[in-house]
């Protein structure tokens, strides 16, 4: 017999009677089943935790997206609002409704020197600036909603006392001689042009030659 075979035989004989009992086998399999159950539970918990973390990440992502949208949309909205506002202001300018800048209208009345040389009494009478002429202009300006009016730096309104006093005109108890400078502050552009071109009373005063000048300044 070969040495290898002999040793093999000896070793096999030594352990051939050794067998695990059924009780131990059942115990081992039971233990494995318990372990498997435990592993399954652990895996389920892990899966639930992973799912929870994933959900948290989704919430975070939504928050980031919302924040990004706010960052984009708010400046965009502000720009749009600003542009819209500018557009409204431009449109207002286009219809001559300047709401911010005030204009000074200066109307200078003085006696028509040419008319005074005439021998005709009527012509002389129409060449002189009367109190009612000044009141007429004040009424016209008040009709445009203008409240700030002065005559020779004397503040007046449509109810102020403006009466003839010999060669002078009495305004607020004070006598003034020509020229009569009527100043008013208005909010409209080109009011002077409108007065000259469209107002019949102004046209009439101009035809009498007593309106020396109508001036508009900012």
């Amino acid at each position, binding site marked *: 017999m070969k040495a290898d075979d002999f040793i093999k035989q000896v*070793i096999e004989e030594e352990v051939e009677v050794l067998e695990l009992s059924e009780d131990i*086998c059942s115990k*081992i399999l039971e233990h*494995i089943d318990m*372990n*498997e159950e435990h592993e399954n539970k652990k895996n389920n918990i892990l899966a639930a935790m992973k799912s929870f973390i994933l959900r948290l990440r989704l919430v975070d992502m939504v928050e980031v997206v919302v924040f990004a949208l706010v960052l984009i949309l708010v400046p965009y909205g502000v720009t749009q609002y600003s542009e819209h506002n500018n557009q409204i202001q431009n449109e207002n300018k286009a219809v001559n409704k300047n709401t911010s800048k005030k204009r000074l209208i200066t109307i200078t009345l003085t006696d028509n020197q040419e008319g005074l040389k005439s021998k005709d009494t009527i012509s002389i009478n129409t060449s002189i600036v009367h109190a009612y002429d000044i009141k007429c202009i004040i009424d016209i300006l008040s009709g445009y909603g203008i409240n700030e009016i002065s005559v020779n730096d004397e503040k007046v309104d449509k109810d102020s006392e403006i009466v003839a006093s010999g060669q002078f005109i009495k305004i607020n108890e004070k006598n003034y001689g020509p020229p009569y400078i009527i100043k008013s502050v208005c909010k409209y552009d080109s009011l002077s042009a409108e007065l000259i071109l469209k107002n019949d009373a102004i046209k009439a005063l101009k035809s009498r030659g007593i309106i020396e000048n109508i001036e508009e300044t900012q």
Partner: protein
Amino acid sequence: MHRTVIRYIKGLIILIDEELIQKAIDRDKCAFRTIFTFYKNRVYRTSYLILKDHQLAEDSVQEIFLQVHKTIHKLITAKAFESWLYKITINTCYSILRKAKKFDTLPFDESIEQSITYNESDFEIPDNILMRKEAKNCIIECIYSLPIKHRTVLILFYLNDMSIKEIAEITESNEGTVKSRLFYGKKVLKEKLADCNELIDLPIGGVICEG
């Protein structure tokens, strides 16, 4: 590495093939139980020869199969199953021995061991039945007295029919080391057997009385 094995155990034909192992890898309970039924006593016997203790061997079988069940899904190929199973067996047994502080190492340098040459023809087997029985006892005693790593190689080689290459893979050492451990084991066994023959005062190669 793995072979298809058909075994007749307690009236049941058990076929262990790659398909069955693959099923066990895929968490098939029935397949795992079949594998357990087939390998339980092999693992138990291997463990016993290493540990030389019935109780510890039983405990090791439980620990080994528990570990197999836990980690079988990590096995890449079903072909490597048997080597992998014995690797777990050996490591578990070593771990138990370390805990029990019974893990002995080789008393001399393995590099010296590589140079040992062994001539198989020197090994003489007694023909006398009584002498042979005595010789068996001597060999078993000698196997248990061998350093643990040498004993492991002998067990895997003779009991589990493993090749040098497979043993090298299981014990995580190179083939040369496995060969030298095997030859050293055989040499010690031969010397022990010679001593036994001298003790019982019978000439080696007495009357053939087999059967």
